[in-house]
């Protein structure tokens, strides 16, 4: 595995993404951050902390997409995690989905399906820490921490201190 993002770079990327979110949405009103479990939730929390420091606190939630996946039948049943929305709901809001790695785009496709069941947001945007390419669907991110060209066989591992005890992104070959 070779390290492609270190702690300071991750922090800088998230800070920049926070500024971009504010710029694009003209502030935090009607803005909702929805993290996709597991590490998307942690990243959304960090972005919300930056937003609160830069401007004002923002509504935060999590969106579990397990039940909407299109690859359920290819592996053992996955455990379901929590979906929690801010009390305001997502109706008419600008929703920013947050995930760690954008790869095939299928997770985001599932997230969009899960989202429309919950209401009709004004807009849906996507923030990811790493875009590694190899999309299988017409999906793109609005905010990208770092574009990392990979080949499809490689794996990208995102580690965050809250979960993994270290902040680091590395790329390596599937063992």
């Amino acid at each position, binding site marked *: 595995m070779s390290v492609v993002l270190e702690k300071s770079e991750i922090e800088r990327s998230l800070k920049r993404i926070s500024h971009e979110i504010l710029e694009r949405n003209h502030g935090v009103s009607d803005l909702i951050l929805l993290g996709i479990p597991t590490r998307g939730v942690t990243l959304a929390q960090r972005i919300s902390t930056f937003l609160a420091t830069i401007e004002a606190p923002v509504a935060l939630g999590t969106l*579990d997409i397990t*039940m*909407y996946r299109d690859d*359920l*039948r*290819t*592996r*053992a*049943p*996955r*455990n*379901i*995690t*929590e*979906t929690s*929305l801010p009390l305001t*709901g997502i109706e008419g809001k600008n929703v920013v989905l947050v995930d760690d790695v954008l790869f095939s785009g299928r997770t985001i496709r599932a997230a969009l*399906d899960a989202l429309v*069941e*919950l*209401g009709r947001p004004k807009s849906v945007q996507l923030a990811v820490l790493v875009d590694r390419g190899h999309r299988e669907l017409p999906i793109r991110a609005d905010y990208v921490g770092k574009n990392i060209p990979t080949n499809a066989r490689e794996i990208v591992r995102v580690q965050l201190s809250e979960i993994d005890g270290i902040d680091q992104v590395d790329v390596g070959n599937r063992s």
Partner: protein
Amino acid sequence: MKNLLSIDDLQLDDVLNILNTAKELAKVTSGPVKKLPTLRGRTVVNLFFEDSTRTRLSFESAAKRLSADVINFSAKGSSVSKGESLKDTAQTLEAMGADLMIVRHHASGAAHLLANSGWIKATVVNAGDGTHEHPSQALLDAYTIREHFPDHHENLAGLHIVIVGDILHSRVARSNALLLKKLGAKVTMVAPATLMPLGIHSWGVHTSHTFDEVIEQADVVMMLRVQSERMSDSYFPSEREYARDYGLTLARLAMMKPDAIIMHPGPMNRGLEISGAAADSPRSVVLEQVKNGVSVRMAILYLLLGGSIEGDRS
């Protein structure tokens, strides 16, 4: 997990996984989302050789909320009355595309036979086989108890659960005894000697013939239905005497601990094993059991059918 036939087949981790999954599903479906696309294109068959209201409707409702197609089969009015066997019936339904069969049968072991005989490839869920087991009922009961005693989320140690009535004919009692013990609860079975199965001591539960002796210590009082349809002999002198000795009467209701709850798998014989006052009291969680039943059965269907069987084996 390929089939759900008996509580005995489940490890503690499996049980907790089912209960936790049910909890998340309950949260999702209590919100704006009533239907999930997860089992789209899968076919679930309710194969019922015995009458049932809530179990069949509960499984049907659970399957539909996960977008599965549901085929209902009941023996009455079918070719079973022309003498068609369980094997032929099941194979016929599988040929129509069934991925999972929910089986209720009057013979103990019917679900096990269907799952292990090689007759069909479909997944089998036991929804009650004779006087043997009714695992989904026990799981929804455990879920309901857990909801009421949040301090006992990881296990039910320290809780005393008293199960009263027709233990002999009750598959609910057997599945509950196995499951509640697995979760660490103290279980006491209360019944007249005629309705206590032989070999009850091998279940690892406490027993009593005197309801009044244990009711004051119970955190949960689970009343069982007197199953007149399974009783060919007389097991007690009269309904009146049964109600007096083993019914949850108004007087016994007053003896219960302040935070104790009343459960009943339904359908209730009001005036026999449970008085109207007890059934309608705020302690009664009977309707919660029904509601939780749908979430627990969604979890069961998801965990059995949501992934691939190949993935499960690896």
